[in-house]
């Protein structure tokens, strides 16, 4: 019986990781290429095969129209609120998008919604984990930026479902990081997590108290990160090239050139974290070259406006927490962009202390997700005292007369949180009541994020103002809203028709799940290989034990030679790269057959030993060759 592994996944803008709890400490599971980071890049190759991660990166340059990156920026958003992103990122929207429809992005000739693209990244991580464990993985904790709204969270959960994962919990990234930090330090106090990643910024303030991780305040910007720095540097390079008469070309329309420049500025940005200058050296179309040097001074000047945008959220979070910087015990840095020395200085100035940098900022979120996965899996000794109390980052409101937002659950409320509102009718016999739910801090409904429109149906017909409809709004531990309603006078449950303003309906998710069965064959094959390898391991281990038994010597030379030949053959096919589960199964069957007599002999020895009154070597019985025999071929539907 396979252990049910629950993995922790950091689904990042730039990179994604999968981790699990190995004994007392969380570890990242590497991919087949041995690397921990899986770039959140999805591409279609010439044969329309889906390629994910490091292998997909070259398509960004070679066939940029067949590859997509930073899809997280589009999760849970509508066409009208991504216009800025479209200017800066080479996302190609599907041409046949209808108003109110969930975004679809073109990759080659196909189109995918952002949750589907994220699901492809998740599926890759799932496979990496399955390969690592040699067992199927179906449950996960996935992290999201703390400042993600309801639609962005729902989109992430949908992505998990499409990838065939049961998402046990969405955890906020900075909070996850605090779990990894807290597991290591085991100290009480107030900590700040400053998380500047590829595309999102979060700030969270937590109180650590005997294993309870209580978030006091959180704030952020879901469209601020290293991507923005890259885009500024790319803009400078493009300007340079256009203005350079010697080059005499304009490459802004060339996807390939822009991607080459992008790679180069990213490398330069990384280099500038440890050296005073960096060189850009890019091959342009037509055999031309673009070269320039970027000094640290210039770099810091360029990024100043971007990193300054993190100051406001930090101050607001402190204010909401009712804390002064001197009351903070420790500042933890998360996200690749916090490697930039200028960012570190900014954090140090803001909170008046040197930030804690022991943790790998790229991995700490995934490690924390693995800790939370372990907590949810039914506490091992090391995590059994740990409990995460998170908050909702944005106030929940409903639209009332005059287009005003009536806030019913304030931001930074510990979740789960709920609020009950009462509604009535305005016209005699009215049976429907419409409710508009919003998320945000602004006073007018039109300035807040529209979450959903609910239609309370089946209100019993009564004179106007008579019905008393109780509507309960509940934000669950994932930060996702649930609504239920009841008419109090009749006790009748009002039916709620939820029309999400942005996002997939349950039906759409189901359909995508069905569509993903296009890949089911591949998944099935992978699973078969995993299972077959595991069985091969079992029988080979059993045989190794059996060879030490007296019974081995009782076999004829031919029998022994035959067994050893088949043993070698099975090892070869098991460790081979061709992933042919039929061959592995055939090897197992042949070896099973050949060791039949060995098993019988061992059984006889064991029985006669027992009859003689001597202690029976129980391991021979349990783990001898016959342990391999009862293994039937695995059944898959």
């Amino acid at each position, binding site marked *: 019986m396979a252990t049910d592994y629950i993995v922790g996944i950091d689904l990042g803008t730039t990179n994604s990781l999968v981790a699990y709890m190995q004994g007392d400490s969380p570890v990242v599971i590497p991919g087949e290429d041995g690397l921990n980071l899986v770039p959140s890049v999805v591409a279609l190759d010439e044969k329309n095969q889906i390629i994910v991660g490091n292998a997909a990166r070259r398509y960004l340059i070679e066939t940029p129209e067949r590859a997509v990156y930073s899809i997280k920026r589009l999760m849970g958003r509508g066409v009208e609120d991504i216009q800025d992103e479209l200017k800066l990122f080479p996302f190609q929207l599907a041409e046949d998008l209808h108003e109110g429809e969930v975004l679809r992005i073109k990759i080659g000739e196909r189109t995918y919604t952002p949750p589907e693209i994220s699901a492809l990244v998740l599926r890759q991580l799932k496979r990496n984990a399955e390969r690592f464990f040699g067992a199927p993985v179906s449950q996960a904790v996935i992290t999201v930026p703390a400042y993600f709204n309801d639609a962005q969270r729902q989109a992430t959960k949908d992505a998990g479902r499409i990838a065939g994962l049961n998402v046990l919990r969405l955890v906020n990234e900075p909070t996850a990081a605090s779990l990894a930090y807290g597991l290591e330090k085991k100290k009480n106090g107030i900590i700040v997590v400053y998380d500047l990643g590829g595309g999102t910024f979060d700030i969270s303030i937590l109180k650590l108290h005997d294993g309870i991780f209580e978030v006091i305040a959180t704030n952020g910007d879901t469209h601020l990160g290293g991507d923005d720095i890259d885009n500024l540097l790319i803009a400078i390079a493009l300007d340079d090239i256009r203005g350079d008469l010697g080059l005499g070309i304009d490459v802004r329309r060339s996807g390939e050139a822009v991607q080459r420049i992008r790679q180069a500025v990213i490398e330069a940005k990384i280099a500038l974290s440890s050296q005073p200058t960096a060189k850009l050296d890019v091959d342009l179309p037509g055999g031309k070259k673009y070269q320039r040097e970027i000094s640290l001074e210039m770099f810091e000047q360029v990024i100043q406006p971007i990193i300054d945008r993190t100051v406001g959220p930090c101050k607001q979070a402190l204010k909401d927490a009712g804390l002064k910087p001197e009351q903070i015990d420790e500042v933890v840095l998360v996200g690749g962009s916090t490697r930039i020395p200028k960012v570190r200085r900014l954090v140090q100035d803001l909170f008046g202390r040197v930030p804690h940098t022991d943790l790998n900022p790229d991995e700490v979120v995934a490690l924390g997700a693995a800790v939370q996965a372990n907590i949810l899996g039914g506490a091992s000794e090391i995590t059994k005292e740990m409990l995460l109390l998170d908050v909702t980052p944005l106030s929940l409101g409903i639209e009332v007369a005059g287009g005003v937002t009536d806030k019913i659950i304030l931001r930074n*409320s510990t979740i789960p949180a*709920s609020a009950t509102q009462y509604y009535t009718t305005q016209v005699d016999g009215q049976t429907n009541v419409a409710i508009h739910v919003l998320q945000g801090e602004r006073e007018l409904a039109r300035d807040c994020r529209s979450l959903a429109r609910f239609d309370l149906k089946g209100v019993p017909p009564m004179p106007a103002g008579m019905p008393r409809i109780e509507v309960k709004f509940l934000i669950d*531990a994932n930060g996702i809203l649930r609504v239920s309603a009841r008419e109090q006078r009749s006790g009748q449950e009002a039916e709620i028709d939820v029309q999400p303003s942005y996002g997939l309906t349950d039906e759409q998710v189901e359909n995508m799940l069905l569509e993903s069965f296009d890949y089911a064959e591949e998944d099935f094959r992978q699973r078969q290989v995993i299972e077959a390898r595991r069985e091969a391991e079992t029988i080979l281990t059993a045989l190794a034990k059996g060879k030490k038994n007296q019974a081995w010597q009782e076999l004829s030379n031919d029998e022994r030679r035959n067994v050893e030949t088949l043993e070698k053959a099975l090892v070869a096919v098991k460790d081979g790269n061709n992933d042919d589960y039929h061959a592995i199964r055939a090897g197992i069957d042949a070896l099973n057959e050949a060791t039949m007599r060995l098993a019988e002999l061992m059984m006889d020895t064991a029985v006669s030993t027992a009859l003689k009154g001597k202690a029976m070597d129980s391991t021979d019985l349990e783990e001898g060759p016959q342990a391999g025999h009862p293994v039937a071929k695995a059944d898959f539907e």
Partner: protein
Amino acid sequence: MRAVHFCSSCGKVQPPVPVDYFTFFGFPRKLNLDTAALEKEFYVLSRRLHPDVFAQADTRERSWSLEQSSMLNDAYRTLKDPIKRTEYLLRLEGVELEEQSKQATEKARATGELKKQVVPPDLLEEVFELNLHLEELRDQKETGEDDPALLEEIGKAKLSLEEKFEALFNELKTEWNKWDKAVEGGTEEDRHKILDKMLDVLNRRNYVRNLVRDVNEALE
């Protein structure tokens, strides 16, 4: 007595029963509250009720845990804040406080409707003068003028308002003490008087708070 959250024989989580927040924590309906004890109890109950603890439980237990822990969080959030606690008690005792609520104020500001608001008589003169000063300041901001004397006047008024704000909180605490005694042995009439007085203090306090906010916005 604390509401029953767990089965007495098996210790499992139970469906929530509709109780008030004081009862949820097993506290008397009093306003002087030991917040350290409240926090401790909150942590103890969180460890037993939070959905994380029930991730592997059946659907029914998971849904009970969700409801119970949301109620726990709602109750804790309300009781730990002295003003929210007072407002909650007033509502529990059947007192309506809608007119002075933040929502009503924000709605009025957003729609430009006039809010029904009575200026506390003891503040009439001060508020009249302050509003004149603020008007002047806004005009000056538009023309780019700078009048240090005016800023000083407004600064003084702000300080005086902040002192009033403090004083009103102390006044509220005096009423808390009276209420806590009346809960044990007072008459119905006593209690009504105290509730009315608390509502009055809260209204005046909200009024002063809004004024301070206006001043701060004007000074920004």
